[in-house]
C-alpha cells in the first residue's frame, strides 16, 4: 500500500498503543516504592554468601549467570552474522575494483597524521589498556566488569587507528587473533558453567571458594567469568570495527593490504 495510506493507518495505531502503555504503567508501584522481594533479598544476602561487594556483578554472573550466558550467545551470533555479511561484500568488491583503473594503494590514500596527534595517541594507548584491564579485573569489587572493561580495551585499539594509520591498527590486532579472542571468551564462559556442573552438580554454580570481600580474588568464579566476558566483548567489537573499517578503506586494493 502507498506510503500515505500506511502513515494514516499508523497514527491511530500509535495513539492507541501509547495510551495502552500509559494505562499499563499506571498499574506499576509508584516510582521509588519498589516492592518486589527478589532485589531486597539479594542485597541482603549477596555479600555474606559470595563475598563480592559489587552486588550487580554477583547478580549478573552468579545468581542470574544463566541469563548472561544467553546474552553472550546473542553477542557471539551478532558478531558472527556481521563477519559473514561483510566478508562476502568485500570479496565481491575486490573483484569489481580490479576492472577499475586505479593506482592509489592503501598508502597513498591515507594522509599522515600530525606528530602531535601521534605522540598524544601513543601516550594514551598504554593507560587505556591498563584502565581496561583494571575495570575487568575489579568487576567483583567496584562498578565495572567484563562488559565495560572490554569496551574500554576496544577504545585503546581505536586510539591506535585514530592517531596512526589503519595499517598500524591491523598489525596490532590481526583478524584471526580477534576471532580467536572472541570465540575463546564465549567458550570459556560456557565451559566455566560446565565446571560448575561437574564439580558442584549444578550448571553455573559458583564452585570456587569465595575468599574474603574486597580482595581481588573474592567472589569465587566471578572474576573468571568477568575475564571471559571481557575477552568476548573486546573481540566482538574490535572485529566489528575492523570489518567496518575494511569496508571503507580497503575497497581499492587488488589483494588488499595484508600487512
Amino acid at each position: 500500500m502507498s506510503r500515505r495510506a500506511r502513515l494514516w493507518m499508523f497514527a491511530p495505531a500509535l495513539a492507541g498503543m501509547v495510551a495502552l502503555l500509559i494505562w499499563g504503567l499506571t498499574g506499576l508501584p509508584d516510582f521509588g516504592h519498589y516492592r518486589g522481594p527478589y532485589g531486597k533479598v539479594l542485597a541482603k544476602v549477596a555479600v555474606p554468601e559470595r563475598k563480592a561487594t559489587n552486588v550487580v556483578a554477583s547478580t549478573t554472573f552468579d545468581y542470574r549467570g544463566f541469563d548472561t550466558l544467553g546474552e553472550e550467545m546473542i553477542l557471539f551470533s551478532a558478531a558472527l552474522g556481521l563477519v559473514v555479511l561483510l566478508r562476502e561484500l568485500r570479496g565481491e568488491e575486490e573483484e569489481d575494483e580490479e576492472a577499475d583503473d586505479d593506482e592509489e594503494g592503501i598508502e597513498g590514500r591515507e594522509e599522515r597524521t600530525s606528530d602531535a596527534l601521534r605522540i598524544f595517541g601513543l601516550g594514551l594507548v598504554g593507560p587505556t589498556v591498563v584502565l581496561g584491564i583494571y575495570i575487568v579485573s575489579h568487576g567483583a569489587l567496584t562498578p565495572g566488569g567484563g562488559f565495560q572493561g572490554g569496551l574500554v580495551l576496544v577504545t585503546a585499539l581505536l586510539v591506535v587507528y585514530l592517531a596512526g594509520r589503519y595499517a598500524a591498527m591491523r598489525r596490532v590486532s590481526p583478524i584471526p587473533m580477534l576471532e580467536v579472542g572472541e570465540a575463546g571468551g564465549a567458550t570459556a564462559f560456557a565451559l566455566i558453567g560446565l565446571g560448575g556442573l561437574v564439580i558442584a552438580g549444578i550448571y553455573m554454580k559458583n564452585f570456587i571458594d569465595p575468599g574474603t570481600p574486597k580482595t581481588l580474588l573474592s567472589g569465587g568464579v566471578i572474576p573468571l567469568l568477568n575475564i571471559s566476558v571481557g575477552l568476548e566483548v573486546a573481540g566482538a567489537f574490535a572485529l566489528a570495527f575492523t570489518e567496518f573499517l575494511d569496508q571503507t578503506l580497503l575497497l581499492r586494493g587488488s589483494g588488499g593490504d595484508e600487512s
Partner: protein
Amino acid sequence: MIEAVQIAALLVVAAGGTAVVLVRDPLRQAVVLSFYGLVLGVLFFAFQAPDVSLSQITVGSVGVPLMLLLTIAKVRKRERERE
C-alpha cells in the same frame, strides 16, 4: 521521592530522544546520538546505577556513533563511485 536531578535528567533525555528522531540527515544524527548516549548515561547515574552508566557511556557515545560514521562513509563512497 523523585529528586530534582532525576527530573532534570529525565527531561533532557526526552528532549534528546526527540532530537535524535527529528534530525533526518544520518551524519548529523550520529553526533546527536553521541550526545544522547552521554545524557542517558547521566540519567542512569542519577538512578544510582553506576554499572549501567559505564556501559552506556562507552557504547552509546563511542561505539554506535563510530559504526554509524563508518556506514555512512561506505555508503557515500559507493554512491560516488556510481557517478
